[in-house]
């Protein structure tokens, strides 16, 4: 049911934005921004359900807690970087979009550094 709602919202938003592109072009970007925000609400609602279930699942699998947290953090960073980068690219500012995405990649690297260090320690212990 939600899928139909999201698809409808997207199409209505795109049609309205297209119609306004002729008369007043900046309002078409506002409408696409509004539609993105509404769809993102549905995405976040669905995602919180999934994260809750995965957290419940992780009780069975003995896993160091912070690995799951790092994975989630990386997913969140990529999600926001993609969202804002795509919006900037929609408005025609690809340079700004690339800056945002580069910063997202660097933050990803920074977040995943401890995991790499731990992996190397593990290898050191084995040999």
């Amino acid at each position: 049911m939600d899928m139909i709602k999201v698809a409808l919202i997207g199409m209505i938003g795109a049609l309205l934005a297209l119609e306004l592109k002729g008369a007043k072009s900046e309002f078409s970007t506002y409408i696409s921004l509004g539609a993105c925000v509404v769809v993102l609400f549905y995405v976040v609602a669905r995602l919180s359900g999934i994260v809750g279930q995965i957290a419940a699942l992780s009780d069975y699998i003995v896993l160091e807690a912070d690995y799951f947290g790092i994975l989630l953090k990386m997913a969140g960073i990529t999600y926001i970087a993609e969202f804002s980068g795509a919006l900037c690219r929609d408005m025609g500012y690809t340079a700004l979009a690339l800056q945002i995405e580069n910063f997202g990649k660097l933050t990803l690297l920074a977040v995943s550094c401890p995991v790499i260090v731990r992996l190397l320690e593990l290898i050191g212990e084995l040999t």
Partner: protein
Amino acid sequence: MEVSLIFKIAAVGILVSVISQILKHSGREEHAFLTSLAGLILVLFWIVPYIYELFETIRDLFSL
């Protein structure tokens, strides 16, 4: 409330474009610019709390 956000923005957009056309033809260029600026601010006034709330939920969800 969410879907009507898009319709409200579309309504403001159409209204502003009509008003600015009228003002342009009646010779007042700067008023037309001011009305489109007012439209922009009104739309931002609606959207910014939504975006803020959205990023707050994302931050809580992903424990960023």
